[in-house]
């Protein structure tokens, strides 16, 4: 893959848009912000929904409780105020910030409005009905759209660059506060809308929260805060890693600290670890693997067979650490075998070889090959892990503090993810990692530079598969059942989507991608039917508009198109198609 350097001038103004909207920028932003605030205080619903009141049923609430603003209305209010602040305070990259906040406001208003409309059976639900009026969502949506237009009017510039240098203690404090905010945001993301099906509005509330969080994060990124924070955390890497790990371990003590969310978080962690492994193969070495979940399956099967479950094939029961190592090794060996065609096969063809391998695995496992997979009956009854007599799936207390059940699995998996991250980061910045990136960019050039491309590519497969095997071993014990059903083609695609959605080659990206793709189904149970369809559509849309992912890797950020600087769509900053003819 050869890439032309992005040649967009640093602050190219969007000429056409500026001419039309420029004078309207600030007024639009002002009106948009005010409308946001007004919308938050207006009533939103003209009736009571049959499942109980829409959160904070707001009919005419403006008159009896003008300041009792909670839930999504609190988000709307906050966004309105922020738009006003951004419009009139000296904020770097003003247009970008206002646009991001405007999107947040529009999305929150639209989601809530649409949901109320659908549930309430018509537009009367969000306008006027039986003498009640409730224009909140419409006013909010208009405000949001105005703010988006205002953003274009003010002009979309590059995100701000902060040059502030901090002394070490202050930097520590900033990092501590920021990561605590991240912890809070994660807990809030998990718990908004309540546990699973207990709240009939969970899906809509969650989407609305995502809209809010996305808007605010994009605004922070526009201001340049996120870039600055990431530079800062890189300067104090050890401290950041410790704080981040501590935050992850503190999650059980937040609102999310109950059995349900510990289980969900642990599942996300397993897939995040696997996604990081896949990121080595796809993100670093650029080898598309469409059968990756098979390695996780192999790890899980090995661990299951050594676990002492009733249907285990081998008569021996090994302690978990030993079984996990064996699982990793076996998966790694298979990884090397699957990777060996890379010596001769490239690009799309390699993707097909991996897909073929994945399918062979599924078929063989389904048919109980060698009696070790138990076919469609699966291997049930794998005992949970235990340490010093504490079973991992029971609740657990330290002194007086009683922790929810499943918390030990959660901690184990946090450690697993941390270990995978460490492996990934060290590899990425090592000689091997640089060799992989070179192979990804141009294999022939890499070989000319003296890289043994064949060995390095097989190594990528081997390491990726080993990590997946380890994750699979934990998966087996945590879920108690191993069935080929969990390791089908769709799972490989989901993992790949997690890597791509987050940003190829980036560690936080893989975790974020896995979190989004595996939390969403938990939250959107009421849309269960459409889940995969939305997922397919999302893949198409991401590839179209943001192929570099949500948190692009720094290197790739330079290689792929930058953010849509100055209104130049990403796809116009294109690669030179490489057509080397024989």
């Amino acid at each position, binding site marked *: *893959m*050869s890439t032309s350097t992005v040649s967009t001038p640093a602050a190219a103004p969007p000429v056409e848009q500026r001419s039309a909207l420029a004078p309207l920028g600030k007024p639009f932003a002002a009106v948009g912000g005010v409308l946001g605030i007004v919308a938050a205080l207006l009533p939103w619903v003209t009736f009571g929904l049959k499942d109980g009141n829409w959160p904070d049923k707001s009919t005419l609430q403006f008159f009896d409780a003008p300041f009792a603003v909670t839930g999504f209305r609190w988000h709307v209010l906050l966004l309105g105020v922020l738009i006003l602040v951004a419009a009139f305070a000296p904020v770097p990259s003003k247009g970008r910030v206002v646009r991001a906040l405007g999107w947040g406001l529009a999305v929150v208003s639209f989601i809530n409005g649409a949901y109320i409309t659908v549930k309430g059976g018509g537009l009367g639900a969000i306008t006027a009905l039986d003498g009640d009026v409730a224009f909140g969502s419409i006013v909010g949506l208009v405000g949001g759209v105005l703010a988006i237009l205002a953003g274009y009017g003010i002009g979309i510039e590059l995100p701000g660059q902060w040059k502030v240098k901090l002394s070490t203690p202050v930097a520590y404090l900033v990092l501590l506060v920021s990561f605590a905010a991240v912890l809070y945001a994660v807990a809030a993301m998990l718990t908004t809308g309540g546990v699973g099906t207990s709240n009939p509005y969970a899906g809509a509330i969650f989407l609305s929260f995502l809209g809010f969080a996305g808007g605010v994060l994009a605004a922070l990124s526009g201001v340049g805060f996120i870039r600055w924070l990431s530079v800062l955390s890189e300067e104090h890497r050890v401290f950041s890693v410790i704080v981040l790990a501590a935050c992850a371990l503190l999650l059980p003590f937040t609102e999310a600290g109950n059995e349900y969310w510990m289980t969900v978080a642990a599942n996300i962690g397993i897939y995040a670890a696997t996604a990081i492994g896949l990121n080595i193969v*796809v993100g670093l070495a*650029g080898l*598309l693997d469409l059968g990756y979940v098979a390695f996780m399956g192999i790890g899980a099967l090995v661990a299951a067979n050594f676990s002492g479950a009733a249907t285990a094939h081998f008569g021996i029961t090994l302690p978990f650490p030993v079984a996990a190592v064996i699982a990793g090794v076996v998966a790694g060996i298979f990884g090397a075998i699957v990777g060996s*065609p890379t010596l*001769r*096969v*490239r*690009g*799309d*063809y390699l*993707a*097909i*070889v991996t*897909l*073929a*391998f994945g*399918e*062979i695995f599924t*078929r*063989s496992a*389904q*048919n109980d090959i060698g009696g070790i997979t138990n076919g469609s009956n699966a291997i049930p009854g794998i005992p949970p892990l235990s340490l010093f007599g504490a079973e991992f799936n029971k609740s657990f207390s330290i002194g007086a503090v009683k922790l929810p059940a499943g918390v030990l699995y959660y901690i184990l998996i946090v450690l697993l993810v941390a270990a995978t991250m460490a492996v990934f980061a060290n590899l990425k910045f090592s000689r091997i990692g640089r060799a992989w990136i070179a192979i990804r960019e*141009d*294999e*022939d050039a890499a070989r000319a530079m003296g890289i043994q491309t064949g060995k390095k590519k097989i190594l990528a497969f081997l390491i990726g598969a080993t990590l997946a095997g380890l994750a699979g071993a934990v998966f087996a014990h945590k879920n108690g059942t191993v069935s080929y059903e969990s390791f089908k*083609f*769709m799972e490989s*695609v989901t993992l*790949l*989507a997690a890597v*791509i959605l987050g940003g190829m080659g980036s560690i936080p990206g893989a975790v974020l991608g896995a979190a989004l793709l595996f939390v969403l189904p938990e939250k959107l149970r009421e849309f269960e*039917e*459409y889940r*995969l*369809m939305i*997922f*397919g*559509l*999302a*893949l*198409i849309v991401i*590839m*179209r508009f943001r*192929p570099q992912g949500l948190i692009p890797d720094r290197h790739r950020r330079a290689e*792929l198109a930058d953010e849509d600087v100055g209104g130049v769509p990403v*796809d116009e900053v*294109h*690669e030179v*198609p*490489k*057509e*080397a*003819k*024989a």
Partner: protein
Amino acid sequence: MSVLLQQLANGVVQGALIALIALGYTMVYGIIQLINFAHGEVFMVSSYGGLATFTLLPDDLKKSPAVALPLMFVGGIVIAVIVAVIMERFAYRPLRNAPRLAPLITALGVSVFLQEAVRVWYPNAKSNLPYPKVFPEGSLTLGTINVPWTGVLLVVLSVGLSVILQTYVNKSRMGRAMRATAQDPDTAKLMGVNPDRVIVLTFVFGAVLAGVAGIMFGGYLNNINIDMGFQNGIFAFTAAVLGGVGSIRGAVIGAFIIGLIKTLAGQYMPGGTQYDYVWIFVVLILVLVFRPQGLFGEPERVRA
């Protein structure tokens, strides 16, 4: 011996079906180097389109196969073409200059989307749907071999259409434009070829053939399900690779080989039909490793 002959005949029919789908893969890959994962779903959609056409027909027309069957072909093919054109225009065309992984992932997305769209929106699509009995019944008996007439029709259609396609691509003006675009899109453009038109037309041809395959699949097996696209799509892709991607003759011959492997491995290899799938993939991997250009493909070009 009679078992062997019967399985050979079954294999040829399977191969004919796979060939119709494989042509779509091979032509698209030949021109824009895209593995169009969603092509198998186009085949599936056309099958449902044909069924929907039949369901919408008035009752008296349903009873006369001479009218209903052609209408089903038309319905299925039209739906397949519409889907393929929309897919090309909105999913693939914007990515024509993107990094190579991007369109492949988009293709996966399109594939998932189409499959789910049919599952959710087509009535009762969650279970196998029976296909209407408007096809010629009975079977052709040659000695000990028994081939349903639908199978015979499938083979005739498949061979006939691929000969027509081959002739078109080799002889016609548009066919020349296609070959030119496949060799070098930029130079072709300089020679007055409109690449967008050529590419759309390629997708349309692929969709028409997949449409025929979709209807005939229903006729031959008597019921359809939403997984048929993915499975047969993979077989077809394997066939295209085996024959040498980009070569029409190669795709057809590759398809017949795959069909024969499937039936013969199901009969004679350990594990039986449960593992026939596996043998196809083993063959695929071996071909890719030892003869990546396929049986009839041009020698490997260096690709990024």
